[in-house]
C-alpha cells in the first residue's frame, strides 16, 4: 500500500522560461521553487549567506539559479540548466535558458523539449526586441502553450490599463508576424515574482485579474501529445535476440525495442516496416519481457511481430495506412549551433530519430533575423543563425513535417571531424 496512492498523478510537464535576469526570470523560478517548498533549508541558508556577502538586505531568490563557477566568474549564464519541482499531483521540469541574442542556440535547445513557454515581459518596458526574439523561437520550435508573464506589476502600481495595453501590443505583434496563428493557446498573466503575486498564490492587490495564477495554469495545461490523435511512429533503437539463452522458447524471440514517439499500438495491429514496406501483425507488446495490453505515446516498449522480418536499428514501424514520406531530400529550418560555420562543401551526418545518414547542403534559401523575423539573403551560416536550408541525404529518412510531429520532424547535424552536434533542424 503506497503512501501516495490517494493523490492523482497528472503526469509530467516540461516548460521553459524565456527572459533575462533583468526581467526577473531567475526571481520567478526562485519564487516557484520557494513557494512550492522545493527549496530546502540548507540551500536557503547558503543563498542567505551569499546575499549578505553581496550586501543585499533580502534573500535574493535569483541566486538559486546561479550555476557554475565558470559562470559566476563571468557574471553570466552560459548554458541551459534544468530544475525540478513537484506539486504532489504533477512533476515539473524547468529548462532555464539564458535570454541573450548570442544564446539563441541555448533557447532552441531548451525549447526542443518544452510543452509550454513562459515569456517574461517587464511591465515597465512592454514588448522589447528580445520579447520578439523569444516569441519567434518559441513559435519556430513548436511549443504548444505560451504564457506571457507580465512581471514587475508592483512597479507600475498594479495598473490594469497598462497591463491591457501590453496585452494589446503583444497580440498585435504576433498577429502581424503570423506567430501562433495555428491555434496555439496564448495566455497573459499580470504578476510580481518578487512579491509572489499570481505565481503560486492569487494576488490580493490585482482584483481586476480573474484568471488563474501561473501555477494553477501549469497544473491544468494538457501534457504533450494529449491534445489530438497522432499517427503511430516507432523508430527501432535496438533488436533483442536472446539466442544464446538457456531457455529454448526464446530461440526464435525477436523483439524490436524503442520508444513510441506518437500514437499507440496493441496486439493485432497491422504494421508496416520501413524501409522495405513489409507488413506484419503485432504478436505482443512487452516491457522487460512482460506482456502489456497496449503501448502508448512516450512509452518505451518491445514489439514482437507475427512474421519474421529483417528489421534493425534506424528502421521504423508505423501503422499500415499511416505511412510517412520517405525522403532523400529535405527542406528544413536549421539553427546553426557551432562556432565553425556551416560549409556547403562538406559532408555532414544527420541523425533523424534513430537513423544516421550522410548529408550535403543543397542550398540556403534565406536567413531569418531573429529580432525582426525578416528574411535575409545568405550563403553561409554562423553560430546562432537560423535559416531555411535544403539537404541531400545518402539514405532516406521517414519524416513528418515538424509542425505535425516534433519527434519525426526533427533532426540534428553532426560534424564527423569532432563528433560535435552542430545544427538543429526542423523539417518543413
Amino acid at each position, binding site marked *: 500500500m*503506497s*503512501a*501516495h496512492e490517494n493523490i492523482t498523478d497528472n*503526469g*509530467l510537464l516540461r516548460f521553459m522560461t524565456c527572459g533575462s535576469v533583468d526581467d526577473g526570470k531567475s526571481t520567478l523560478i526562485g519564487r516557484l521553487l520557494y513557494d512550492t517548498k522545493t527549496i*530546502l*533549508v*540548507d540551500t536557503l541558508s547558503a543563498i542567505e549567506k551569499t546575499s549578505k556577502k553581496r550586501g543585499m538586505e533580502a534573500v535574493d531568490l535569483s541566486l538559486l539559479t*546561479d*550555476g*557554475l*563557477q*565558470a559562470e559566476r566568474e563571468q557574471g553570466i549564464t552560459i*548554458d541551459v*540548466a*534544468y*530544475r*525540478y519541482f*513537484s506539486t504532489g499531483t504533477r*512533476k515539473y*521540469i524547468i529548462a532555464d535558458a539564458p535570454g541573450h541574442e548570442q544564446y539563441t542556440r*541555448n533557447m*532552441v*535547445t531548451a525549447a*526542443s*523539449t518544452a510543452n509550454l513557454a513562459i515569456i517574461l515581459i517587464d511591465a515597465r518596458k512592454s514588448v522589447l526586441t528580445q520579447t520578439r526574439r523569444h516569441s519567434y523561437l518559441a513559435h519556430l520550435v513548436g511549443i504548444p502553450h505560451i504564457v506571457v508573464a507580465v512581471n514587475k506589476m508592483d512597479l507600475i502600481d498594479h495598473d490594469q490599463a497598462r497591463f491591457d495595453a501590453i496585452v494589446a501590443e503583444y497580440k498585435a505583434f504576433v498577429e502581424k508576424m503570423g506567430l501562433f496563428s495555428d491555434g496555439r493557446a496564448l495566455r497573459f498573466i499580470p504578476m510580481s515574482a518578487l512579491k509572489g503575486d499570481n505565481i503560486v498564490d492569487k494576488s490580493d492587490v490585482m482584483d481586476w485579474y480573474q484568471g488563474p495564477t501561473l501555477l494553477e495554469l501549469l497544473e491544468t495545461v494538457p*501534457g504533450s*501529445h494529449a*491534445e489530438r*490523435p497522432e499517427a503511430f511512429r516507432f523508430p527501432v*533503437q*535496438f533488436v533483442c535476440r*536472446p539466442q544464446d*539463452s538457456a*531457455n529454448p522458447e*526464446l530461440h526464435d524471440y525477436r*523483439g524490436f*525495442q*524503442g*520508444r513510441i514517439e506518437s500514437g*499507440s499500438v496493441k496486439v493485432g495491429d497491422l504494421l508496416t516496416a520501413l524501409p522495405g514496406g513489409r507488413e506484419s501483425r503485432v504478436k505482443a507488446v512487452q*516491457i*522487460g519481457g512482460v506482456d502489456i495490453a497496449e503501448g*502508448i*505515446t*512516450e*512509452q*518505451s516498449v518491445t514489439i514482437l511481430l507475427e512474421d519474421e522480418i529483417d528489421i534493425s*536499428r534506424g528502421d521504423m514501424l508505423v501503422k499500415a495506412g499511416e505511412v510517412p514520406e520517405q525522403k532523400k531530400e529535405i527542406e528544413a529550418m536549421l539553427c546553426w549551433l557551432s562556432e565553425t560555420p556551416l560549409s556547403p562543401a562538406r559532408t555532414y551526418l544527420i541523425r*533523424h530519430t*534513430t537513423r544516421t545518414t550522410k548529408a550535403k547542403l543543397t542550398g540556403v534559401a534565406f536567413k531569418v533575423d531573429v529580432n525582426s523575423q525578416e528574411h535575409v539573403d545568405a550563403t553561409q551560416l554562423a553560430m546562432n543563425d537560423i535559416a531555411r536550408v535544403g539537404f541531400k541525404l545518402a539514405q532516406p529518412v521517414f519524416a513528418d513535417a515538424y509542425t505535425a510531429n516534433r*519527434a519525426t520532424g*526533427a*533532426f*540534428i547535424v*553532426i560534424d564527423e571531424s569532432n*563528433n*560535435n*552536434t552542430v545544427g*538543429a533542424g526542423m523539417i518543413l
Partner: protein
Amino acid sequence: MSAFTKQTLSHLDWLEAEAIHIMREVAGQCERPVLLFSGGKDSICMLRIAEKAFRPGKFPFPLMHIDTGHNYREVVDFRDRRAAELGERLIVRSVEDSMKRGTVVLKSADESRNKHQAVTLLEAIAEFEFDCCIGGARRDEEKARAKERVMSFRDEFGQWDPKNQRPELWSLYNARVHKGENIRAFPISNWTEMDVWQYIEREQLELPSIYFAHQRPVVMRGGAIMPVNVTLASGEVLNQPKAGEEIIDLQVRFRTVGDIPCTAPVPSDADTVEKIVVETASTTITERGATRLDDQTSEASMEQRKKEGYF
C-alpha cells in the same frame, strides 16, 4: 465531433520510459559501454531500468564498480549478490590497486578516497576500452550536475568542459566519440531523490539494510553525524573516534551510501521504504547537504571534481 481523450503516463512511468530510451540509445550507439553499479539506491534503480529495457535478453553491457575499499560491508555484499541474481557480469576495480600502482597517492591515511575514484575509473576505462559509462547521477543532486548533458562528452583525459558541451536537443542523443574519448550517460538525469524513492517503493526493489533505520555508534563531528568503529570485510576498523569525542548510540539511516569517511547518516526511525518516502517528502535538508561531507569543502567542489574525470 468526438472528444479526444488520451491516456498519459504517470510521472514515474514517464521517467522510466525516458531512462529506458537513453539506455537503449547507449546500447545502439556505443560499441563497449559499461554500467556503473555501486549497490547504492540510484544504481539499484538503474538495474531495474536495464531489466525493463533489455529482458528477456542479457544486458548489452557488463556492470562495474569502482571500489574505494572503504565501502560498507552491507553494500558490497548486496552488490555481489544482486549482480549474481541477475546473471550479469560484474567487474570490480579498486582504488587500493591504484594506490599500489602509485597512481593514487593519499595525503593522509584517513583521507576520503571518494575523489580518487576518478583515477581508478579512468584506468578501468583504458583497460577495457569502454566508450561509454552509464551512471546513476541526477541533476537535482548538485548545481554542476544541473547543467550536465544526458550524454556528457569526456576527452582523452576524462575531463568535462562545462563551457563546451554538446548541445542536446529533443531526444536525439549524440554518443559519438573518437578512440580514447568517452561518454558518460545519465539515464536518470531528470529524477529527483523523491522520484527514486517512489520508484523503489513501486517496483519493490530490495536495498542494502543500511538505508533503513538502525542503531549505530556515532560521534558528532563538524556538525555531522559520523559513524565510528566501522568494521570492514577485511577486519580493518575505520572511523575511530578522536580523543574527547563522546560515542552515542543513535538510530540512523543513510540517504546515500559511499566512501565511509565522507558519508554521514541522518537520524531517522524510518524502517520501511514507505516511511522513507514520507520522510523524504517532509525533509528540510538536501541529500548531499545532509550527507556528503566532500561536497561542502567548497562551493564548486563537484564542478571541480567533474572537470577532473569524476562522475
